[in-house]
């Protein structure tokens, strides 16, 4: 049976990608975030994942408002990154895991998730950057992308994203292979790029959110999406990715590592590593 070996929550701020492209990881501005990667990489090496499921939000590369899915699951043999318009170098293609994708799709639709399935799918920086940070020499293990809409409201609720993650966790647990799956939630934490409140960051909310995410994630469902907008900013809703990642891990977890830093560009950035308690 397949197992989930752990979960990573991580920010995908485009500026991190530009900093990596320019090899500035050791510069004083960037170092407080990038120093968090070494322990995460060492832990990943120790848990030996051979597949990844990543929850991320597309920023207008693959999806537009003509066909905007709430939840989209990739089922492609490979995923291409592409030009997003603002200068991030394009990554090499990423390997897919269609068998695991279909396992997840079949289980989700049987459990009344109304997926959009994607046998071809361009993946943006929210997908590419976490993988680049965690596997700087290129990721060779196959990946299942799960995109959650954060562009156009109404977004799915925290409760719905929690159940999405939990149901994907069940699908993985029921997989007859011996896959060792790492689950990634890519986004956040608190930030707001648009409006007179641009630059809004809420350390107190992030701290409380992270604490509850680890210890009693079901309780986060008390926040509506608009609560999250109010407390964490318009792009702080990317926390939905973290909720889905945490829910996929199931029951109690051990926090392996956390590195929270303000600011990276306009964002409260974080890397969190979690391991299921056995």
């Amino acid at each position, binding site marked *: 049976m397949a197992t989930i070996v752990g979960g990573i929550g991580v920010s995908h701020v*485009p500026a991190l990608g530009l900093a990596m492209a320019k090899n500035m990881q050791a510069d004083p501005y960037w170092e407080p975030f990038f120093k968090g990667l070494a322990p995460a990489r060492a832990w990943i090496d120790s848990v030996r994942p051979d597949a990844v499921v990543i929850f991320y939000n597309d920023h207008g590369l693959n999806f537009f408002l003509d066909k905007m899915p709430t939840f989209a699951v990739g089922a492609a043999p490979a995923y291409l990154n592409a030009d997003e*318009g603002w200068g991030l170098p394009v990554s090499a293609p990423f390997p897919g895991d269609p068998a695991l994708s279909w396992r997840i799709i079949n289980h989700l639709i049987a459990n009344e998730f109304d997926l959009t399935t994607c046998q071809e799918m361009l993946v943006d920086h929210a997908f590419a950057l976490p993988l680049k940070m965690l596997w700087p020499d290129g990721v060779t293990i196959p990946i299942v992308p799960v995109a959650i809409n954060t562009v156009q409201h109404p977004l799915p609720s925290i409760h719905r994203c929690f159940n999405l993650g939990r149901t994907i966790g069940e699908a993985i647990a029921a997989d007859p292979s011996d896959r060792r799956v790492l689950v990634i939630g890519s986004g956040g934490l608190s930030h707001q*790029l648009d409006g007179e409140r641009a630059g809004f960051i809420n350390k107190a909310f992030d701290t409380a959110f992270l604490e509850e995410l680890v210890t009693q994630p079901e309780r986060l469902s008390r926040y509506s999406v608009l609560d999250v907008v109010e407390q964490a900013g318009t792009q702080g809703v990317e926390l939905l990715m973290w909720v889905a990642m945490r829910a996929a891990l199931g029951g109690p977890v051990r926090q392996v590592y956390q590195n929270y830093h*303000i600011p990276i560009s306009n964002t*409260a950035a974080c890397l969190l590593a979690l391991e299921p308690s056995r």
Partner: protein
Amino acid sequence: MMTEPQTPRAISGTIVFDGAEAMKGYALNKMCYSFNDAANRAAFLADENGYCNRFNLSSGQIEAVKSRNALSMIRAGGNIYYLAKLIGMLGLNVQDIGAQQTGLSVDDFKAKLLQAGL
């Protein structure tokens, strides 16, 4: 499970991009989405008016784009995820437009961000 849509509410300095905004901004956002393609970015830069008209932007949206003012573009229905492509190709980054939207200098805007971490 909720049974009613969330009640819209005012969040200060914040526009929630919902159905009403999505309808209002469709043409503008569609144009911005096209800027994933380098050839389209070049076409816009070569003939801004012509390009905007090709996407049927309203005159208010064309004015907002011309102003290079992020708040105006957002009020014209622009969604930041798509606007980012336009803003980026105009040589601005999120800190430049953060400063612009909050009426701060870029240095003061950056200082405000640092402050949030203390």
